[in-house]
């Protein structure tokens, strides 16, 4: 999937930039998986933080629903005025800062 590949590449570039010793391909793969997980943790928080206070509850309830799908989730955020793309970009940059520091 292209999105995954792009994210992998972003993380891979970060690892390269960090110039870690002894990172072979195998280790790098593991690092990427771990980093993506960490990034997702941060992005989850940033995305919820970006929601207006009065829309958090609704989002929370949405996540409880069994019939939820990605599109509904995405639309909810957009309808709530969350600049999803912008938040994601900012979080990527923040993550980069954190990782490289």
């Amino acid at each position, binding site marked *: 999937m292209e999105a995954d590949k792009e*994210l992998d590449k972003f993380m891979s570039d970060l690892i390269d930039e960090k110039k870690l010793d002894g990172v072979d391909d195998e280790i790098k793969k593991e690092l990427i998986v771990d980093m993506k997980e960490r990034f997702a943790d941060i992005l989850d928080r940033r995305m919820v933080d970006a929601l207006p206070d009065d829309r958090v509850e609704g989002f929370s309830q949405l996540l409880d629903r069994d019939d*939820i799908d990605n599109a509904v989730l995405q639309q909810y955020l957009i309808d709530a005025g969350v600049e999803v793309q912008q938040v994601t970009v900012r979080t990527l*940059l923040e993550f980069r800062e954190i990782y490289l520091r």
Partner: protein
Amino acid sequence: MSESRPAPASSVATPPERDARFDIAIVDQSQDAIDAARDAAEVRLTEELNSEGGRIRRFIRNIWKGNHAKEIYRQRYIAEAAKTIHETQDQFAHLDADESQKTNARVATIDRMLQGHDEAIHQEAGENREVLDDGSAIASATKDLVRRYASGDLDEDALKEEQSRLLEAYRATHDGVDELRRCSVQVHNITDVARAVKGAVEHGESLDQIIQDMRVVDGTERSGARTEHMQTLTDRTIEKLGKSKLGRLSFLTPEMTVTAVAVASSAVRVGATMGLGNALKVVAPGIAGGVIAGLRESRHVRKERIQSAREAAQGGERRDSDTRREEMETTLYETRSAVDEAANIREALGLEAFENNDIAAVHDVMMRVAELQERRRISDVDKKDLLSFSSAIAMGAERHDLDMALVEAKMALAHKLAIDDVQNGLRSSFGAEPHDLLAAAREGHSALIEQDVTEKDKLYSKLRRKRVTQKVAVGVALGATLGIATQEAMAAIQPNIGGIADNFTGQKTDLHGGKSHYTLLGRMFNTDQSSGGDTHAVAAGAGKFDVTGGTADIKNGMMTIDAHGRTVEVPVGINGQLSDAAREQLQGQGINVGESKAVPVNIPTTKHVNMSPDKFLEHYGDKTSHVVRDFWYDNNTPSPNFDLNEQGLHLAGENGTGIGPDGHVQLTVAPMTSEGSFHSGQSIEWQKAAESGNLKFAISATENTQKQPFMLSIKPDGSIDIPKDHPAAQLFSEVDGRMQFNGAYGEVVQSAGVDTNGIEHIRPLATMVGTKEWPGGPVDIPGTEPGTAYITSIDVPNETVTELPPIVPVPLSRKSMEQLKGPEAPYYTAYERTSPEEWRAFRKEISPRLRRDPQAILSPRDELKWYRGDIEKRKGKEYLRDIDAQIAASPELSNPAEDLRAIVTVPVHGSGEADNIYKTLSLYNQQTEEKGKFMVMLHVNWFDSEELDVEKKANIHKTLSEIERARQDFPDLAIATIQSVWEQEKKDRGEYGNGIIGHVTRKMYDAAMMTVEGAMQQGRIENQDVLLIRNDADAEGMDRRYVSQMINNMESHPDSDVFTGAIRWGTERHSDLPGFAFVSNFREVMHIATHRKGISEWPPTVGINTAVRMSTFAAVGGVGSDPDNTGIGSDDLNIGGRVKDARQPGDGGPRTRSYMRYGSARFKNIRRRLRDSPAETDSGYTGRSGEGNYSYHRHVVGATIDTSPDRLEAAYLDPRVESTSDAWANWDNKQRSVGVAELRKQHKESLRSNPAAIVSHVEADLSKSITERFKNSAHVAAGLAMMLPVEIDGQPSYRISATRSGSKRFEFTDEGRQWFMHRLARDSKGRYDPIGRRVRRQKYHEGVRGRRLATKIAPYVK
């Protein structure tokens, strides 16, 4: 001596009563469990943030975990802790507590739910309790489970399996939030009850009846700290998001992800562009960073307050160095110790004044009840911690105990308020009805608590404001600085961003997107802002513009400059003149315009003159040819018949108008054909002629000048182009949108060459006949004249972009609160114990005088008399009769010396001490103390089973014989004996509790005290204190002043109750094991070091060498009567422990806490309170001595015993045992010296041949000891200072470091090692004198061989 066969010791070991009811409680603790998981995560995070490491490491760690990633780690740690708790079904899984404490807590919970007192169920806090109907699924399934197990349908394994299913079903019926389902914890007594029911059925009870009577209680417990974790809706939502079944980042479409990554990557390369002024750009990142830092700090501070409140409620104590927590503690609501409050209210109820209906005492209880009720209510309802507990694990039990104390108080109060005198007394004293008084008191306390809450909230707001403001200020400055610094660093490695360094190196910046990008500093300090691009010249008449970095074009007097997409147009003079206005216009657009340079030139001119055709041709003669027409390709059809190619010349240009671009005149012959031109056998293919350059267009101005036409080439495609500036063009003019030929003829001709006369021969193919109207008007005649032209340089700079420094959240290092103090290690883990119930029970075992006044000077007679009654009450008349009988049967006990000051009590295992006892008794015989002042009392005991073993039976007889021999040999030494034979069967049934030593010593101590009590009652002994000394039967040597030193200390220190001397471990073995000499001495030195000021460690009372004032020992109920706690520690550590509990109850609460945290902040507060209160100080127990923490306990110098080292030595020698600190780890009340003889054969240390092995062994042993046993670093330092020089020649003698695994490592330095080996091997003068030999010589005067000795008589006897 009189031997009496004792009665079986049944009276000392009554099995605990078991609750006869078979009720079952299933208690859900999930909410407490998830709170515990959060607490554990906070502790873990705090620990990690405070772990060892250099400053830089800490700084980085604090940035990473303390700020950016703290939340990530926190959630991860919570999840991990929750998983562990769920899997172990143990909400205390992360607490450093032993199983017994956990079991106590579980049992307390079950009991509380089964008892079901309304007062004990905190509904406001979320607790509930429901007795399930038999018809309910859970009750029915539970009963069915018990029935099937009791009837034998299920075995143990099946019971557990079925129980698991039952609990799963239970969880399914208890809908909770998702979080709770992942950390679902229940405690229950299903298994215990099932087993009990099975036992009852086997003993003939009716299973049906039991099941019918059985109640199943469903409860929810909330016994933890009340302050709620900051688990906001946001937190929960984030958790849900992380666990969503849709997977991670499910809110992003693939396109969003791809785009976001691309944008982010691009931003990384170039940075963001914002149209801000430079000044604002400086400030903006800082402001943004500051705001983010401030928001974060606000959240952190809030969390810290919650954490502090919870931890304080759970008995946590901060370290002195933890200023952050100290500051935060000022914002915490005032709490009351649940243990103290329960004890206080019970004490108030027990006062005689209350019992006698004293109005002030009754009112006092009313006030206490009112406050506790309010404190409890507000705590539960508002989720605030207004009560504190000794530990997290004890919270449930202590809270319940306080509830019960409240119930007791309310009942007692109700009883009092029903009495008329009390009612009237309250009315007259306080002017109100009793129930109004209580209501008013509750209101008053509620207001006081609310006032405290308000004040503390204000303090908290102030503190938060302060910290947030600091963080914002630092964040603004640091945010700007870091952002700018980061930007410069990026610029240094990226060619397309100009940084400040480039200003100094002259490095030009590559364009990116046609623009120059600068860092903020780079732009501010950049003085050279030229484009750096290529230069090209644009002519303007005789002048020119040298344009750099852009393109320019001049047309019609206007110069158009392309400035990177923007167009700027200004008028220019014909020779490059640039007006001031034009110059300003350009500069206003950011285009740099240089000074115009004046250059003298010949300026082209055009003269407008009227001239005749001849003159015209004369003027343009060089562009005409003299021609002769050989013939016409008329296609053999003479004029005026024109056909074929003769008609093939046409106007071309735009739409055939003849008008071409730029005023050109354009025609074409393309319509001509290859065969369309011929004449009398001559023909021509026009294309070929054009290609060979022989096809031309001849323009004749007039008929008269047709011999001198202008000749223009016709291109192979047939096109004819007459430039505007060509003279022939003046023969054309535009008429009605078409070119009109005003000359005479325009002919398409074949050039046949030039003859020798210079005449060109032409042959027309087609002819255009003009209007033959010579213009006759002015004709432009070009020329030149001297003039000035201008050369101007124009620089079109690249568009400059000042990059905004990255606005990233400011990574401020944030100092977390420090870890709470960890529990200090108790010396003997077996001594750890107690629940509030035990504490309460202990209080009941104390004499009323001591309970009223812990600092009381006690009367031996009164206390021993009270103790006699207490023994009878608690242990029964039969037990007391047995004691009395044994005393009566013993001449020594029944008739003690008038001046008796000490009884040395020694437990003697009948089959185990046969070889030791005579020697031990001989040591007392050699004492310097007058024999009449002390007696030795032996409790010889054995199991009946040992009588069946021939060898053991013989040993028992030998022991008794040896005692008798000693009596004969030491006639002045009073040797008394009592005897007990224990029943093996009872032991096997577990009816002796967890060890026999407790029973042996209790009886021995009781007999000793009743001996003195009896003598006092009979008047044979004055009301004077007698010391009860506890020793063991395997002493190998003893200071000859031992008994006298003990007695002297008792007499000269009336404020001390407990006395201990030093122990040496087998000095005889030190020659073979010099390393052992060191480690065993270290052990004892550490005990002695507990008396040092500033060392907050409890000094243990070890049975080998302990003494206690009998009045005090009686007043604390001896070593207690707990039938289950009879193992190691109950016989000796309980001596000091119980005295401490009674003498210093201010430390409050369960004993474990008291011992482990003695010297704590709370203890110090109490000491401070005592010190600051004159009345209390005068009479205060602590104040009497004014010395260290344990003023009731005195170390007695000169009261040393050299004891058998077997157990310690075995631990030292056995390679399977890591350290002597593990010597008692496998205590099982059996033979202590298993294997030591064999080990001795295998291991021996040599100072000469292998000293390094000794050093290594000692280092390893000490490392383990200070890791696991002596954890207090100040204590260790004090102990080692007594054994090693702190410095040798300015170098430390040892180092202690922490390993990665968290253990500690003790290592000698080179200097220390050298010193250590020297001291083991040589005396102070450097002579070879190994430590073993040296000690024996000094203490026993062995191997003197002419050496001068410090004393004439050996200090020790052997």
